[in-house]
């Protein structure tokens, strides 16, 4: 489904990603872990189409289509969803109204009938339960005056409503207390489906106790240094990231010698 091939990305002339290769199949849950500044969030943002990143080499295809050639909204219509690390406040714009505009723009793009107000309200009432989001949040301004935890729950709620086929969760666990983390994780687990891929960007193993990944990748210095199953995450938890870096450096020098 999603294929990231030799992706190089710079921000304001500084190289952030140095040749990422990643393949994500339908229904798979991948965790991307790594130290601060390793490029994890950059990867998620480049896939979603945020401005300000320069792709200097490589490609990102989704269902065989060139994602990088699309506008952010077109990627959303193709089923790409990004749960923001820092959800944005938009004062005066009703949460429900924005979401309805998003859902209907996508339906329109796919030649489907737009949902009317009543159908939409039924949909969001049902989805709000998933992350225990109070009804009153639906009619408030987008993230306006929400606490950190409420904002993150709102992200997962939006994911539930938009039903993406590829969900990128950018540090969704950051800033959550243990109860909020549990609620958010339950919401994500409820949204796991065999035709929906999930990519979680996180610092901590903690989130992976709740949402069990099929694959774990270690991203450092703009490269994926190691990939494995969930046991890799546990190893990282106990040993940190340095041994992975060292191992990768050894491999590299060994390769250099053999050439």
């Amino acid at each position: 489904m999603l294929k990231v091939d030799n992706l190089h990305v710079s921000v304001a002339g500084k190289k952030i990603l140095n040749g990422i290769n990643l393949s994500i199949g339908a229904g798979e849950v991948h965790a991307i872990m790594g130290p601060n500044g390793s490029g994890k969030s950059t990867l998620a943002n480049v896939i979603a189409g945020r401005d300000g990143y320069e792709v200097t080499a490589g490609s990102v295809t989704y269902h065989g289509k060139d994602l990088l050639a699309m506008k952010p909204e077109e990627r959303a219509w193709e089923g790409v969803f990004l749960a923001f690390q820092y959800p944005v406040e938009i004062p005066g714009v009703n949460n429900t109204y924005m979401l309805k505009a998003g859902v209907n723009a996508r339906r329109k793009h796919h030649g489907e009938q737009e949902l009317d107000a009543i159908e939409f309200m039924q949909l969001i009432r049902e989805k709000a339960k998933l992350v225990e989001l109070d009804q009153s949040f639906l009619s408030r301004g987008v993230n306006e005056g929400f606490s950190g935890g409420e904002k993150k729950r709102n992200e997962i709620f939006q994911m539930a409503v938009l039903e993406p086929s590829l969900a990128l969760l950018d540090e969704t666990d950051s800033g959550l207390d243990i109860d909020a983390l549990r609620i958010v994780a339950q919401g994500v687990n409820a949204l796991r489906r065999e035709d929906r891929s999930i990519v979680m960007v996180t610092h901590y193993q903690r989130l992976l106790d709740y949402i069990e990944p099929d694959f774990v990748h270690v991203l450092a210095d703009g490269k994926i240094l190691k990939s494995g199953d969930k046991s890799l995450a546990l190893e990282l938890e106990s040993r940190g990231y340095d041994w992975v870096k060292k191992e990768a450096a050894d491999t590299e020098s060994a390769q250099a010698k053999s050439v």
Partner: protein
Amino acid sequence: MNDVKQKPVVESTPEDFAGQEYEAGFVTDIETDTLPPGLNEDVIRHISAKKDEPEWLLNWRLEAFRHWQTMTEPHWAHVNYEPIDFQSISYYSAPKSKEDGPKSLDEVDPKLLETYEKLGIPLREQEMLAGVAVDAVFDSVSVATTFKGKLKEAGVIFCPISEAVREHPELVQQYLGTVVPTGDNFYAALNSAVFTDGSFVYIPKGVRCPMELSTYFRINAMNTGQFERTLIIADAGAFVSYLEGCTAPQRDENQLHAAVVELVLLDDAQIKYATVQNWYPGDENGKGGIYNFVTKRADCRGDRSKVSWTQVETGSAITWKYPSCVLRGDDSVGEFYSVALTKMRQEADTGTKMIHIGKRTKSTIVSKGIAAGHGQQAYRGLVRIAKSAEGARNYTQCDSLLIGDTCGAHTFPYVEVKNPTATMEHEATTSKIGEDQLFYCQQRGISEEDAVNMIVNGFCKDVFNELPMEFAVEANRLMEVSLEGAVG
């Protein structure tokens, strides 16, 4: 309201406006009786004679004119424009009336009706649409007035001011110029000398006007300054909601519009005055467009009277106006809610004055300025608490939103407090429309243009909520049409 056809500014879908062409840009070919350019006492005598005015009004005009000649043009506003040659303006233009003018729509020039159709103001439909009476001003002279019967039954007078001069001279003479005196300012003096028409409203004691009153102004004849004069009187305990909306045809030369609006409120009276202004803003290089230099003032003479100004200003090359409230009566209330949008080379210097004189008077100011392109935007507001205004309160909030990095926003708040018991609150913000906000919306599947509209309308919400329902819908559409192509 499910029929948008009656609205002058939102008839078409945004797709119709590709390239930001001004949608109301056409000129109606109609025989006009237009004076040659120039201003002197003879011109004023001519206007007065044309209108068959009594001598007191002619003298009033002449006095204003003489005063105007002693005044100098003000230049303190934060706007730039070429000097105006007042002698190159024609001060009178009226559609030629056959006989004594139309008695009903059937007698109105079909071409004129066609113009309204193009603008989306089908008067015929308006007659059927219950609740809104229209006094349509076309080139300074009102040619059609509807719903007169129903208003008459309630005792409400709603007519062109020229008609009021003939039919209700005692009311006009009693109140005209008492809120905005002839020598109040340069443009008010000019207006007093040469005003050609406008609206007159009188709501008798204790009467709640049975419908919302609306006037659609329209500038048509080339090089004709528009000098509207509006006078609204709400007698004790009366209530009226008045809507004013404008569009204008496209042309090259700058047109001066210097209107005066006077509101008089007696004890317990209430007036809600809403404006949607969408005059031709000029082209991308700032060529053409209307100069909108307006004096609007409400005088809350009575105790517990309440006035609210709501304005949505998206048009004109230059907007220079401060709808103001003189809170004379004890416990009187003044409100000002404003959205002003400037794009391309548009400039606006707008705000309000709240003059607290009576005890426990209260005022609220909510101003939202949006600047895009090379637009310049200034909020200028005065809150004055006089010595006598025991326990007065003011709340001011002015927010600016910038779209792009070639526009500007400025805030000039003036506060004068002469009574220590006053309570003053002031909040001001300036923000740039965030890349983050745009990306957030786009990531949810909303196109960039729709996202901008959504964010701007959210920003304006506090003000739009004050508009009558159908105007609020219209205002939303107006912002969308106005912002087309402003981003990206």
